[in-house]
């Protein structure tokens, strides 16, 4: 079963008479339980593709089907709810909220659904245990190392139990040791929980460990 189906995706940016084709007729399917890595040089459109998959950005043309649902003409409210339920995001620079402590950061996605405070706390403690940070629940993000931050971010991505995790260069800001830890965690989520993961990376080594790699050049899929 296809978890993500992209058909005929085009993305064109227009700024002051300059037109940039970021994606050109991309057709890509990601199967359930797959760990897909996307590679390519800077500006090839891989991040744009990830954003489109994450419903953070709309394609200029083409259709997107996620978890069997055709995503088209959704209102802000439906779109938000859909993302909340089905998608988890991990960013290169973590994007934790510095004014909230670890557990509050992790709980964030649950704030946008009807989950009781007790339940939220319980789930957050559980996912933090999973990423090995139970002892850091009350810390502020600024008190953590980069690797720990990214693990908090991963905990945040999975607390809502989404089928899909989209990771944009998750190890880009980490040294190799911490990077390896994070990758290990992602693989664990993929293999043990069966979550579908799409990851943008520059790292050949990491890409090789995933189940499939696609390459982009100049907005087109080249392999």
């Amino acid at each position, binding site marked *: 079963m296809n978890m993500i189906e992209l058909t005929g995706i085009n993305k064109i940016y227009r700024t002051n008479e300059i037109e940039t084709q970021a994606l050109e007729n991309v057709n890509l399917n990601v199967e359930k339980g797959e760990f897909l890595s996307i590679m390519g040089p800077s500006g090839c459109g891989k991040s744009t593709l990830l954003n489109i998959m*994450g419903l953070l950005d709309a394609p200029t043309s083409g259709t997107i089907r996620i978890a069997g649902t055709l995503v088209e003409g959704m209102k802000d*409210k439906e779109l*938000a709810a859909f993302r909340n339920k089905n998608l988890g995001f991990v960013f290169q620079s973590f994007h934790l*909220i*510095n*004014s909230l402590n670890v557990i509050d950061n992790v709980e964030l996605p649950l*704030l946008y659904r009807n989950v009781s405070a007790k339940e939220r706390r319980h789930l957050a403690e559980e996912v933090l245990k999973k990423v090995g940070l139970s002892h850091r629940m009350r810390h502020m993000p600024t008190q953590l190392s980069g690797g720990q931050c990214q693990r908090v971010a991963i905990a945040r991505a999975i607390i809502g139990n989404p089928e899909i995790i989209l990771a944009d260069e998750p190890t880009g800001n980490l040294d190799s040791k911490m990077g390896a830890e994070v990758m290990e965690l992602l693989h664990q989520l993929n293999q043990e929980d069966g979550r579908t993961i799409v990851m943008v990376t520059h790292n050949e080594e990491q890409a090789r460990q995933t189940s499939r790699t696609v390459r982009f050049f100049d907005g087109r899929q080249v392999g």
Partner: protein
Amino acid sequence: MMIRQYFQQAWAQLRQQPLISAVTVAGTALSIFLIMLVVMMQQVKVAPFSPESNRDRFLHVKWGSITNEAWGESTSNGPLSVRTAREVYGKMTTPEAVTIYSVFSKSRPVSLPGQPAISVDVRETDNQFWTVFDFVFIDGKPYDQATFDAGQPVAVITESVARHLFKTTQVTGKEFLLAHAPYRVCGVVKDVSTLAETAYGQVWIPYTSTDQINNTWNEDLMGFVSCTMLARDRSDFPAIREEANRRLDEYNKLIGEDGWKFINRNRPYDQEKNVLATGANWEPDVKVERRNRFIIFLILLIVPAINLSSMTQSRLRRRISEIGVRRAFGCTRMELLGQILGENLVITLLAGILGLLMSFLFAYWGNELIFAQQYSMTLNPPTVDASILIHASTFGWALLFCFILNLLSTGIPAWRASRMNIVEAIGGKNH
């Protein structure tokens, strides 16, 4: 959790940028401070407090105008004579009570025989006065109808006057000299602020005990008294006005035989209108006054709101990726809008409390400056206390203005933030 996060994040923001926070809090507090002073300046005139606790049920005829066929367009304007007040308004049946009293308190010497006199503000009244106004008696009781009708020289005095004359407040039955005539104390009341403009005095005596009835001008049609009616309910106002007009027409028929005509300029006025009626010869426009107050509020809100908007905007700019991340994880535009407004409301309320507190303190210490009365016969300062300054409505207004200020200062930046492209926001780009 939502609410707790608002507090947490508001607090974090305040700490992150101490100077900007100070500017924000100062701007908000200053605005609420001045707005609340304006609110209080109006409230001391219209909000209820003893002895004018029934202000919302008062209808006043402070003055009137009279003209004569021989005068052409000219009118003569001022307080009424006892006769006019009695015949037109005194016999009305729709109100619960009608009182006739001297328009201003007058300064008169009081003393014990053989001792130096002090000047006190004396108001001449009828016995209904004590029904319409709710004085707090700490000794004795008001003069009754029989005493009033007999014109007996009795007086209700304030606590301070009692202390000054007799060194104690339990003085019912004792005598003193008022304008060189012996008067007997029949009751002692708590001191009254000059802000209770209609009821104010330091000593109250029956106007039948003086020459007030003959103290007239323009035959015996005009004089030096006013009258106040106490309606059973505000909904009776139209019926009372109707009765007043009917009686006035009858009275005009009577005095019309000598060419006189009494003009009431749509009196009686309710409390709000009456406080504007500083002159006898014109009708105040409540709408214009309200509009002016509205403009003042608008300026006091808009100017700081523009400032605060710019601060909010700058603060949001530093949190742009947070906004993107929240949106990515399923926060709707409305939820984001609510969150930003909520967080800022925490700050606004905090500053608002500060401003309100400042306004209370300022009103209390600066009463002579803030509540200085427009034109009065007494030189005593307008004293204030909690019962005058603090009403449930005071807090209601403060809260309302905080909400409005928050909406004005955060609305546009929050709306813009909620419309932002998620990808760009996560990337930290502003536009």
